[in-house]
Every structure is written in C-alpha cells, then in structure tokens.
C-alpha cells in the first residue's frame, strides 16, 4: 500500500519536473535583434512605444515569432505601419484595433479574456488547484492508522 502511494508521489514529482522543463523551454533566453537601424523612429519614446507594440503582436506568416523579432516581409510591414500610425498621433489602442479589425485576436500574443478564450485563461488556475488537491490527498498521514500500516509492511 505504501509503495503504491510513494509511486504516485514520484509520478507527481516527475510531472512537475516535466512541466517545469516545458516552461523553461518556452522562455526566451535570448532575443534576436530584427529591427534595422533605418526602421527606427527619431524620438526614443516613440521608438520604445513601437517596439512594445510589435512585441505584443504575432507575425502571422511565421512559426510563433513576434512581429518585433521576425525578418518576414509581413512583420517588417506591420512594424512600418505601427511607426506610421504613431507619427500621425494614433494611440496604442487605435493601432491594435486597426490590426484586430483585419486579423482578429489571433494577432495578439495576449488574447483578451472572452467567451472563446476563458478555458485558456482558467486552465492554469484549475490545474494549480487540482495539483495542490492531489498532493494533499496523497500525502502520507502521520496518524496511528498509517503507522500501523508501515509496521505491517516491514
């Protein structure tokens, strides 16, 4: 009986290590500079706004790259449009709305919480609560009952 519980705890440990490795693997450890000097805006504040916006956007012709770090024509054009719109006084929301109207929420790397995406947003919380519950349920209890069981096993 104890062996089974210990085995189960090992399983949970292995899953947690696996999940941790997956998270590490998806974390950008290095960043590639795709922005060319001639693309940059004269005003450093405007330029940093443009960079921040581009980092929020998905390059739609790439495999999971942001508009900020892609060399694809699509990304270069979007970056240029962002800078055009900033220089004509458009707000960040105006620019994001312009792109969402054409490419939908998919172009945003942070999808908004709505009817279509609530499972995506709630899944980590549900998994966390589920994991904590599993650990609590399978934790060996230090009560006389389990002490007796351990004695039997030996």
């Amino acid at each position, binding site marked *: 009986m104890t062996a*089974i519980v210990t085995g*189960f705890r090992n399983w949970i440990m292995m899953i947690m290590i696996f999940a941790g490795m997956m998270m590490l693997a998806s974390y950008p450890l290095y960043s590639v500079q795709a922005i060319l000097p001639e693309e940059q805006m004269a005003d450093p504040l405007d330029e940093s706004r443009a960079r921040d916006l581009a980092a929020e956007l998905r390059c*739609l012709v790439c*495999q999971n790259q942001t508009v900020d770090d892609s060399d694809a*024509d699509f990304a270069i054009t979007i970056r240029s449009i962002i800078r055009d719109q900033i220089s004509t006084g458009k707000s960040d929301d105006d620019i994001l709305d312009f792109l969402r109207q054409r*490419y*939908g929420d998919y172009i945003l790397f942070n999808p908004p919480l709505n009817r279509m995406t609530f499972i995506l947003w709630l899944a980590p919380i549900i998994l966390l609560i589920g994991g904590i519950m599993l650990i609590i349920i*399978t934790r060996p209890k230090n009560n006389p009952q389990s002490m007796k069981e351990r004695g039997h096993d030996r």
Partner: protein
Amino acid sequence: MKIRLAFFVPVIIFLLFVVVSFWGLYAITTGQRSTSDIGFSMQGQTIPDIALASLDQHGQINANAPLDLADWQGKAYAINVWASWCPPCRAEAPAIHQLSKSLPVLGINQRDKPQDAMAFLDQFGNPYQQIGVDPDGKASIAIGVQALPETLIIAPDGRVILHHRGPVFANELHGSIRDALNTLGIDQ
C-alpha cells in the same frame, strides 16, 4: 482499490496528452487544419478605401491614373493580390481568368518589379481591369491580406462578400466563389 485507481490517473493523463498531440499533428499533416489559418478575415466587413499608383499596359507606374477603390463604389468587383515571385499565384492564374469573366477583377501587385509583373502577364495573360502597385505591402495590410495570393469579392455597397486566403482553384470557383457570386446575383 481506490489508491490503485489513483495510481493510474497520471498514466491516463499522459496517454490523453499523447492522443491529443498526435491528433493535432495528424490534422495539420493531412491538411485538415493549416498552421497559417488564422480563422479570421475581412469577410462581412467594409473594404477600406485604398488608392494606389497603377501599372499600365506598357509596364509604367502611373500615379496620375491610380487604382482607387472609391471609384468602384456602387459596383461588384473582385480584388486579387498577386506577385510574379509567388508560385501559387502562377497556379491560380487560370482560375482568376475564369473569375474575370463573371465580374471585374482588380489586381494588386505586391512587392514586385514592373518588368517581372509584365513578364508574368505576358506569360499567363492579363485578367485585370486595373492593376495597382503595392511596393511596400502596406496597402495589402490595409485590406487585411496575410500572405499571397488572396482574393476578395466586394459587393456594390463595399461589403466584403468573400475573403479567400490562398490560391483559387476549380474547387473554390465551384464552391465559395460561386456562392458569393450567387449572393450578388451574378451567374458564373
């Protein structure tokens, strides 16, 4: 017994993970789902006004006689975004010719050299009523283009009846395009 069942829960979760992953890969490799399908288009929206310098019959870029979508307001028409460097554009050329028999097709030539565009038209024929040039791709983004080729069918009120991403083949001509033309009351 209860604990033995609990022991298999991680195994079951793992197997489910494997099945879902394989199903996802299978759907992509068999073409049921495309990684480039963003599930969103301009369909149902109003086409934004764009005006582009035109490419004339002699291969000259002409800013005085622009391709202005505002001029086409009140008429049904199609927009085909293409380039000579785009292989699927070559593949769809016969279907675009077919489409041009049903309604006027406007070409938007993206990031192309005029001489290359003219060579393409010499080889495959010119189905376009008017050709606008989009050297930096910004006009294409303005009308929601993701990747070449794309074809849009516009109603007289400016509404996008059909936005097809990717090449047009017989399948589309006899399917989504025929349906769009029927909506506009045009016989193919």
